[in-house]
């Protein structure tokens, strides 16, 4: 048995991996105390183990990987997402991870990273950008998917998340609908990811991991922009945690 914890900037995810595969998942908002959220996720996972043994190795990844207690090893989220995606979908070649504060496109072969591209010091194209708009619309991912299903969009000119927010306020004032603005946001995100993808060779199958993995709307806009199908990866939210567990204590 092994535990993988992906302590991201927004969500802290955990997976308990046993000989028969995934035995338990856990997820919590990260909050301000990274160590505390990681401990809570760990405690929850340990609750699933009968005859609790203390010696289960814990492998951490994500932005807060060095903060998580009891870690046996910390790995980068890049390797972890590649490995986790391979576990969930053997043969996967490209992983797009939209995280809370960064996004990356990873070329994978047999679960190993071949090359990767990551956004620089900028929130454009990250989960934070999406979250900001959802907050303004008082919406969650399922409502966003409904808005995106309308297929409408308005062109957003700002690539910067902060400027885009003020642009959106302006658009709302001009009477644009939530559908159009959500569509514009998704396209702006997809274009940013497209520019990263252009620098790694994009091979199918392509999957989406991270906090937006469940969104069919984001996947379909990405598929359209990248000109290739971005497939649904069940449990894609947990790809990082799962990958960390798969990578093992080294």
């Amino acid at each position, binding site marked *: 048995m092994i535990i993988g914890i992906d302590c991201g900037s927004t969500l802290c995810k955990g997976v308990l991996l046993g000989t028969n595969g995934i035995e338990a998942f856990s997820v919590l908002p990260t909050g301000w105390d990274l160590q505390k959220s990681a401990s809570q996720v760990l405690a929850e996972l340990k609750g699933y183990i009968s005859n609790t043994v203390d010696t289960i190795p814990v492998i951490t990844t994500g932005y807060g990987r060095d903060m998580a207690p009891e870690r046996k090893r910390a*790995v*980068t*989220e*890049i*390797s972890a997402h590649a490995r986790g995606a391979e576990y969930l979908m053997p043969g996967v070649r490209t992983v797009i991870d939209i995280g809370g504060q960064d996004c990356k496109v990873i070329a994978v072969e047999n679960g*190993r*990273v*071949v*090359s*990767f591209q*990551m956004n*620089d*010091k900028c929130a454009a194209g990250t989960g934070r950008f999406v979250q900001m708009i959802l907050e303004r619309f008082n919406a969650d991912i399922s409502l966003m998917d409904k808005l995106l299903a309308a297929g409408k969009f308005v062109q957003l000119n700002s690539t910067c998340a902060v400027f885009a927010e003020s642009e959106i306020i302006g658009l709302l004032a001009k009477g644009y609908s939530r559908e159009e603005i959500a569509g514009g946001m998704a396209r702006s995100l997809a274009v940013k990811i497209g520019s990263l993808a252009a620098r790694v060779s994009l091979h199918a199958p392509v999957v989406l991991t991270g906090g937006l993995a469940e969104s069919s709307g984001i996947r379909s806009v990405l598929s359209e922009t990248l000109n290739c199908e971005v497939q649904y990866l069940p449990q894609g939210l947990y790809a990082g945690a799962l990958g960390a567990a798969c990578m093992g204590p*080294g």
Partner: protein
Amino acid sequence: MPETTSRPLPEIFESFSDARKQGFITMKNLKEQGKGVVGTFCSYVPVELFLAAGLIPVGLCSTSDETIGEAEKVLPRNLCPLIKASYGFAAADKCPYMYFSDLVVGETTCDGKIKMYELLGKIKDVHVMELPHSQDKPSSRALWMAEIKRLKTRVEEKFGVTITEEKLHRAITERNRERALLKKVYELSVMDPPPLSGLEQLQILFGTQFKFDHEQKIREMEETINSITKTYQNGKHPVPSTAKTASRPRIIVTGCPIGGATEKFTRVIEESGAVVVAYENCTGAKQFDRQVEESADPYEALCDYYLNIGCSVMSPNPNRLELLGRLCDQFKADGVLEMVLQSCHTYAIESHTVGEFLKARNIPFMSLETDYSAGDTEQLKTRTAAFIEML
């Protein structure tokens, strides 16, 4: 080599990492004795001319972000940090070496520097050499030769000295000896595991330029090589091997010059579990790999040597790839990491060529952009660690 080992290794490394600071005092004393000082920025400047004139050459490339704010009062924000910092230290009068320089010699390497020198010329006495941007045309070579002669005349007039061929020849021999020893220092890391970390190697390579007494410098380098070799032969391997692969991944660093604030690049690599074995940049092999031909006419020899430095300002730039490929073989590199300073267009663009070159040789490569601030350390860490996990 004579038996000179007396000081323990940590003390020797410290003397190099401390050299820039210690050099301030030495330089002050030399100035008080009436010695002339010439400040330089790039590896392209033939420092042998200054040595032959009895002057002290010193590197002025700034490696700290301390005066970038000062520089940005005049220079644009979106400019290479090396250029901004170098100008900033002059404008703020904070770099003792800049302060002590009677003459500053620049060269038309990149656009940023060319224009910065115009502004620097208002603060200091600046002489700019016109560096051609190709190495294979007779007209380029002729221009560079003329520029070397023009520099000679300028130095002679400014300092009232005569640079004789004999003195120049002696300076060439002296400098060659230093180059050979520094090459010996970095070639120690051909051994597996290397006998010193990449950070220690960097401190020696970077620090040596601030030691101004030739004979003493030679003695110290010999002592260093002896000491490192002996410690290693006694079975002490200071770079621990990782349990899994028996040895740490061996990384060659390429790109812009490294030192001071950008030591973070090496730190991040080594904290991520790899070891830097060689530097294919102006802090390392690019400066010390070759020798100036001693049997030829000194001006012809200097012209050929300096023009053929493989910097990304040259187009095409085959010598960089030749050296990089050779180092990869010699040091058995597992991967190459490139450091590109923010807004350094020539290195940033050449990155693609380097990537293709290494791809053909099956050597993993990644290029990272950074500046002199500490703000991106975490981002560098994640990318570098992922690269090393990939190997």
